[in-house]
């Protein structure tokens, strides 16, 4: 009996352990080194641009720094809390959309296109300020609802290959898809510099990439479906350390 209880306790302890692994865990040593070392990480080129944009005035002569001050202080932990509910537009938005909204409504400046160099630069700079901090999705019913809708998308089979996100990233992580190892799909390093793209990209670009891989219809950038999925991924990665701006193969 005692052995049985001990065994049960052990199983419970194992089940309680965190089996979540960042995408960086599945990369080669040289790619890991590239992410770890800022002098090698190409994303730092975007961070440099972002730091310059932070203090540059736009539109009506206001800069980000004019309201928010020093980003290394004011933006600490901010990226870890997105997607968040926006009381202005009454919907859940991601960090890129938040920056775009601030630019349009506060700076009165022309909007940047999704995935534009400027937007990714500012997003990388803001996200860097949360590096090492735990992913901390905000509470609240709206974000919870978005995450629940996102979860449904995550488990929904889609595309001509009829695959769901979960079939690869929950059921077959660690195995291979052609030459690449399937990671668990934790979105804690975005925006990322992806070697395959030779470019910086947002989480939405990566999600659309996967969707095109299973030959599904691609939601446009900014679609609520993608933001919901981001909200679910944030809930799923809650407590994991932010690596932004990451490098991925």
């Amino acid at each position, binding site marked *: 009996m005692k052995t049985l209880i001990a065994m049960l306790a052990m199983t419970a302890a194992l089940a309680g352990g965190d089996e979540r692994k960042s995408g960086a865990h599945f990369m080669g040593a040289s790619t890991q080194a590239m992410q770890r070392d800022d*002098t*090698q990480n*190409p994303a*730092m*080129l975007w961070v*440099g*641009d972002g730091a310059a944009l932070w203090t540059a005035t736009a539109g009506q002569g206001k800069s980000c720094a004019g309201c928010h001050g020093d980003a290394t202080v004011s933006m600490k932990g901010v990226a870890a809390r997105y997607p968040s509910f926006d009381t202005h537009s009454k919907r859940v938005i991601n960090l890129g959309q938040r920056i775009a909204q601030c630019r349009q409504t506060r700076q009165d400046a022309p909007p940047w296109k999704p995935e534009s160099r400027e937007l990714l630069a500012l997003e990388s700079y803001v996200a860097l300020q949360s590096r090492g901090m735990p992913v901390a999705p905000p509470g609240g019913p709206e974000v919870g609802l978005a995450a629940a809708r996102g979860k449904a998308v995550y488990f929904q089979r889609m595309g001509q290959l009829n695959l769901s996100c979960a079939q690869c990233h929950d059921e077959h992580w660690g195995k291979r898809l052609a030459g690449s190892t399937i990671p668990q799909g934790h979105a804690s390093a975005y925006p990322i510099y992806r*070697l395959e793209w*030779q*470019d910086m990209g947002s989480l939405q670009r990566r999600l659309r990439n996967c969707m095109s891989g299973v030959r599904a219809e691609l939601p446009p950038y900014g679609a609520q479906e993608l933001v919901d999925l981001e909200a679910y991924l944030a809930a799923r990665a809650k407590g994991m350390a932010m690596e932004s701006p990451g490098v991925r193969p």
Partner: protein
Amino acid sequence: MARALVTVPATAKRGEIIEIRALIGHAMETGYRPGPDGKILARDIIRSFSCRYNGEQVFAAELHPAISANPYIAFFTVAAESGTLEFKWEGDNGFTQTETARIAVT
């Protein structure tokens, strides 16, 4: 102008072997890829990189279309004397960029 990041140790001992790193933002368009309209995109690459240490060339490289975007070049040299390292990238369409870094040798 492109953004470049050069990493040089601020101080070194005379005779010490030091690592220099240079990363620059550049598309390195190969000249072989079709664009969205199916037409081949014109080649636009960095063709040469050089590093001068107090005027003397200590490292140089020729770059070709197979080199990735945002090329990263790391190399070693011997810390001879205090002074300036000048990095120069040159390429298609008149691309040229220079960065400098100072090193104090004791």
